C-alpha cells in the first residue's frame, strides 16, 4: 500500500532558503565559538589524559596469572581455560611436580603459559572457568607491540601483570 507523505506547506520565508541557511550558520558558529574558547569539553586527549581512576569495577582488561600467598603460581595447568577460550588464544604446556616437592600434592603446574593478545577478545571466560582462581582479567588495556611475537604474553609477563592474589582458594594448603 502506498503511503503518501504529506509535505508541510512552506511560507515564502522558508522557501527563500536564505533565512534558514543563516539560522543554520548561526548554530554552527555557536558550536565553533564554544569549542574555541574551551566552553565545550567532549574530547579526552588520550595519552595525556586518562580515565584509569574511573574505570568500572568489572572492567575486563588483559588476562593475567596470579601467585598465592606462598608465592606458588596458582595455576594447576588443568587447561580448562585453554579449552574454553573462544578465539583459542591460550596455549599451555603442563609440567609435573617432582615427587618430593613441597607442592607435590598439586601434581601439575604450567611449564609454559602463552596468551596471544592479538587473538584474545577479553571475554573473561578464562577467569570464569578457572577452578583455581588462578587467572584474572586485569585493568591493563594498552597492550601494544611491534611484532606478532611481541604480542604474545608468556608466563613471566602474565605473572608480572597479575602479581599476588591473597585469600580465597586454600584447598592445596598442606594443613588440609
Amino acid at each position, binding site marked *: 500500500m502506498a503511503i503518501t507523505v504529506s509535505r508541510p506547506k512552506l511560507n515564502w520565508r522558508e522557501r527563500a532558503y536564505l533565512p534558514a541557511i543563516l539560522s543554520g550558520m548561526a548554530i554552527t558558529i555557536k*558550536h565553533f565559538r564554544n569549542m574555541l574558547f574551551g566552553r565545550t569539553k567532549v574530547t579526552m586527549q588520550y595519552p595525556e589524559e586518562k580515565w584509569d581512576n574511573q574505570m568500572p569495577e568489572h572492567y575486563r582488561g588483559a588476562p593475567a596469572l596470579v601467585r598465592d600467598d606462598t608465592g606458588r603460581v596458582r595455576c594447576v595447568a588443568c587447561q580448562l581455560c585453554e579449552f574454553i577460550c573462544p578465539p583459542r588464544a591460550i596455549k599451555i604446556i603442563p609440567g609435573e611436580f617432582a615427587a618430593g616437592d613441597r607442592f607435590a600434592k598439586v601434581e601439575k603446574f604450567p611449564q609454559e603459559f602463552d596468551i596471544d593478545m592479538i587473538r584474545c577478545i577479553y571475554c573473561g571466560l578464562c577467569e570464569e572457568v578457572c577452578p583455581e582462581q588462578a587467572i584474572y582479567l586485569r585493568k591493563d588495556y594498552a597492550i601494544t607491540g611491534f611484532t606478532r611475537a611481541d604480542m604474545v604474553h608468556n608466563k613471566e609477563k602474565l605473572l608480572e601483570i597479575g602479581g599476588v592474589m591473597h585469600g580465597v582458594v586454600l584447598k592445596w594448603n598442606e594443613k588440609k
Partner: protein
Amino acid sequence: MDYFYLTTSLVKIVALLAVVLGIMNYTVYAERRISALIQDRLGPNRVGPFGLFQPIADAAKFLLKEDFTPGHVNKFYYWLAPCLAMIPAITTLAVVPFGSSLFGVPMVIADINVGVLFVFAIASLGVYGIVIAGWSSNSKYPFLGGVRSSSQMISYELSLGLAVIPVFLLIGQLRLTEVVSYQIEHGWMIAPFVGDWTNLRKWLLAIPMLISFVVFTIAIFAETNRLPFDLPEAETELVGGYHTEYGSMKFGLFFLGEYVAMITGSAIIVTLFLGGWHFPGIPDGSQGWSWGLVNIFVFFSKVAVLLFVFIWVRWTLPRFRYDQLMRLGWVFFFEIALVNIFIAAIILAYFPA
C-alpha cells in the same frame, strides 16, 4: 626589452605563487580544524604546536605515496586532467590586484583591460580537468561525477557572468584595478553609502549590488564544487566522484586545485565587491612601502575571512539534490541575475551621477 618590467613581473609571480600555495596548505589545515570545532571535535592538533605542521606532513604523505595508474584508464588524459584542474585556478590570479603598489611597482601581475573576462574565460577551463578526469578514468562513478560537474558548471557560469554585469554597468570598465580604484573613490560595492549616508543614489545602488554579491558568491560556491554544491564529488553517492581512480599526488592536485579555486574565487569576490586591498583610513603604497605591505595584508585578510565563510558554509549545509541544484541555477539565480541587471540599469538611467 623592458628588463625592469620583466624582473618585477617575475618576482611578483614567484612571490604570489608562494603566498597562494602557502595559504592553500593552511586552508586545508583550517578546514580540518574549523570543521572539527564546528562538530565539537578537536581536529589535527598533534604535529607541531596546535598541529600547525600538519600541512607539511600531509604534503610528505602525498609525495611519498605510490603513484599508481590503473590499467583500464586512458593514460594521456588521465595524466592531463589533474594539471587541468590546478592550472586555470592559479592562472586566474594573474589579473587580480592583490595590493596597491610597492616601490612604485603596481601589485598586480597582468593589468589587462579585459580583466574580468579573462577570469571567466580561464576559470571555466577548470571544468575540463574534472570532465576529462571523469571520462578517462573509464569507470562509472568518476564518469557520473564528470557529467554532473559539466552540467553544474555550465548552469552556474551563466549566473556568475550575469551577476557581475551591474558592477560593470556602474563602473564602465572591465579592468580590475579600475574596479578597485572606483571603489576607493565611491565606496565599496556592497555598501557604497558608507561615509556618504545622505546620497539616495548610493542607497538605491546598494540593492542590485547586494543581490549581485549574493548570486555571485553562491555561483562561486558552485564553481568551486564546494558544499552545498559538491555533487561532482559527493562522497556518499559517488565514492569520490571524478577523482575516485586517482591516488597520491595526482589526487593531491585535484584536492588542492579545489582550494586554489576557493582562494581565487574569494580574491575575485573581494576585488569586485569588497573593495580589494582598500580599507578605510589606510593609505595606499604611494605613501611608503610599509603601507604597500599593509595593503597586501588587508587584501589577504579579506580573502581569509571569505575562506572562513566558505568553510563555515560547507560544515553547515547538506548537499542539494541534483534536480534542486538545476532548478536553483536555472529558475532562480539565472532570473534573479537577469532582473538585477535591469534594476541596476534603471537606477543608473534615472539617477545619473
